[in-house]
């Protein structure tokens, strides 16, 4: 029997989309060429973060954060959901002024945001070096372990009568059908949630792989209390510089410290670039000197699916084919909201927020 929807890609975005569809009563078939979370989902940081601007990013990230809060109550322990919040760090006065404006903006929206002076910062996060201009604490942000969340969502899809097929490589995703080594499969609608690989199966999608490095340490419980991100991160994420690094350090529930981040467009070069990794680490150490002496267990590379305007593609690409891909560094954050928006769009319902900025067919040109 023909499924109502085929979702291509069992990363967190595909899983959340399938979950949203299944909850609306659709019979969903999820096709994954490798293993669930085997792509960007398994390589990333698991940060669930609200972005204050631009406005459209605020709308979708805050919508998604609300969904994450609801989901948190149901997630099993292995998802390691942690409401530790994000501490944005200002290095200089310019960034401090920016932080102040951000705090005002959050308050104006009725959301919690706490400005921290250098003294307060030292109490709040003792491992930070002295001499920072201040910080902005957003308590609503979370950290999760994405592969476990993906698994949970896929289990929910299956519990609702859906199906997950692993080792099913789609070669072409088109309107109401997919082609692969398995032959041809039809559905009421197809959703391409293949992330950085989405353009391989749907020609013309404006998504490029944006390489990032990460490093994880052994367990050092209590060293850091919050996810730490430098305000300069925003410049890195929204820019298109050759190889940029920005401090993004996350204590995991295990006590391990995940150190990031780097961004560069070098195609699919999955080799670790020692120079970039070194700069990334230097940046992190410049904020948290104690990181220097920690044992590193592993370092690796991942590819963020990046669109020219850094916003995901959500919605119909052509008749019978929708896209849920291109989330750059916000894949984890936006998975629930993207799933809901796409599920609404393909079932003819109105999404909870204005989804037109994310229209998959919007005019986009890669820099």
């Amino acid at each position: 029997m023909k499924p109502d929807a085929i979702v291509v890609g069992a990363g967190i975005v595909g899983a959340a989309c399938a979950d949203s569809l299944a909850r609306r009563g659709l019979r969903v078939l999820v096709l994954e060429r490798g293993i669930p979370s085997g792509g960007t989902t398994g390589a990333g940081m698991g940060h669930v973060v609200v972005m204050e601007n631009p406005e459209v990013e605020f709308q979708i990230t805050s919508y998604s954060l609300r969904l994450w809060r609801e989901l948190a109550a149901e997630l099993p322990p292995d998802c390691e959901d942690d409401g530790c919040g994000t501490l944005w760090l200002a290095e200089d006065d310019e960034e401090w002024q920016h932080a102040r404006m951000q705090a005002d903006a959050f308050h104006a929206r009725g959301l919690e945001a706490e400005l921290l002076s250098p003294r307060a910062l030292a109490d709040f996060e003792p491992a930070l070096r002295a001499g920072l201009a201040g910080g902005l604490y957003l308590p609503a942000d979370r950290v999760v372990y994405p592969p476990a969340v993906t698994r949970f969502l896929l289990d929910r899809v299956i519990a609702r009568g859906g199906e997950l097929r692993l080792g099913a490589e789609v070669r072409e995703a088109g309107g109401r059908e997919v082609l692969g080594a398995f032959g041809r499969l039809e559905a009421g609608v197809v959703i391409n949630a293949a992330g950085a690989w989405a353009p391989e199966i749907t020609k013309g999608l404006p998504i490029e792989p944006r390489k990032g490095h990460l490093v994880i340490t052994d367990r050092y419980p209590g060293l850091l209390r919050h996810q730490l991100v430098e305000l300069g991160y925003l410049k890195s994420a929204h820019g298109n510089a050759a190889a940029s690094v920005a401090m993004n350090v996350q204590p995991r529930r295990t006590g391990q410290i995940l150190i990031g981040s780097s961004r560069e467009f070098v195609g699919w070069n999955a080799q670790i670039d020692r120079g970039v990794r070194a700069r990334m680490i230097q940046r992190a150490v410049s904020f948290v000197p104690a990181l220097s002496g920690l044992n590193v267990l592993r370092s690796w590379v991942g590819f963020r699916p990046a669109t020219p305007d850094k916003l995901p593609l959500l919605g119909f690409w052509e008749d019978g084919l929708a896209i849920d891909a291109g989330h750059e560094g916000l894949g984890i954050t936006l998975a629930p909201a993207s799933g809901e928006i796409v599920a609404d769009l393909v079932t003819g319902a109105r999404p909870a927020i204005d989804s037109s900025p994310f229209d998959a067919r919007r005019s986009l040109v890669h820099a």
Partner: protein
Amino acid sequence: MRDERPSLLAERWNRGDHALRESITGEPRGALCAMGSCFECRVTLDGLAHVRACMVDGSPPLHAEVPARCEVAVVGGGPAGIAAATVAAEHGATTLLLDESARPGGQIWRHRGEAPKDARSWLDRLARSGAKVASGATVFDATTDGERALFVDLGGRTVKVAFEQLILATGARERFLPFPGWTLPNVVGVGGAQALVKAGADFTGRRVVLGGTGPLLLAVAALLTRAGAEVLCVLEQAPASRLAQFGWQLARSPRRLLDAMRYRLALSSTPYLTGGYVVRAEGDGRVEEVILRARGGDTRLRCDVLAVGFGLVPNLELPRHLGCTVSEGFVTVDQRQETSRASVFCAGETIAIGGAPAALIQGEIAARAATGAEIPRALLTARDRERRFADRLKRAFDLRPELRALATPDTIICRCEDVRARAIDPAWSARQAKLYTRVGMGPCQGRVCGPALEFLHGWSADSVRPPLKPVTTHALEVEA
């Protein structure tokens, strides 16, 4: 210079501190491998967390002078590496031997103070050869893009070493298989027990049960007996019939037969049970009793130490990282010991588990090949003969299927992350298991659970991600 001080691990052992740490779910843990692979013996030393007590040698810290380039780099200071570095240097190449331990010898020639008899002439020759020996040096990364360089951690200082020829002699470590109670303190490896004795741990009067497989069982039982331990019994999982065949074939290697006979003599009053294995270890905070299964019956035995190990597995992290072809769990090399990567040679246990004689010969062949020296036919013949011995060894001590069924759902499989058997679905791929349970994602980087999972579920190691051994963040801050 002779140094008789025991390792920190041995010191703690002698003080009766068998539990050195608590696992992440609160289990008391002590050393297992005692040779730097398992990370179970980690302690906080001088404010620094996760220091392996077995690697803290009594001698003062080394500050090796490591050159930025050499003609021949040798990684691993066991017999293969010692022979390779010696012969390469003797043939005029600027040679650097990089070894993680406090002094060369690897596992089989591990010593403090006086070196074992077999090792002495080689160590003297190494000292005279002109090869530079860097001890306390951990190779944690290597370039893979055409450039020829290694990244070495010297206890906090990182050095990049360029080479023209590379000889990998990274040796082997023990294979551990999970069974109920295997994580109790004083359950150590067979090689682990050997390493403990050699590092200065006192076994006088300790009641020891040995189990597992391989000639190492007998050698270590004899060593422990000489060290004053009361070896209660030795359990070899291989059946008597296979051992008899192997014994008969041993007759073709007179020296090895002599070894075997010497061991048997040393243990003449110790029960040696074939076709037997430990099914369970029990105790409060440490092993106090073991249940043995042999000839269809189970027996309980009270003991102080259980030393159990199931053969050796090669250390393939560096060869894999360099892209050397690995086949059936060993590095593939040609007649000259060269791997699939040009100018990268491999010798010793990473080619086949065959012990010191094979390692020495292969190390020499690799050095001659790397320096363009002639390789005498006699050497090749000797190597091939040793290889046949290694093959016989493998067949004789093949693991019996019952060993797959020892773990219960509650048994810990991954000791770093405390992942129990019930959390792992055999239907998964290795990668799925890692993502879902974090098995193999701890400080031992899969060195303990990896071979176990391969035996249990057929999962082979996938891609290697640097650093190849844990190093500090600081070591990675240095730009390449």
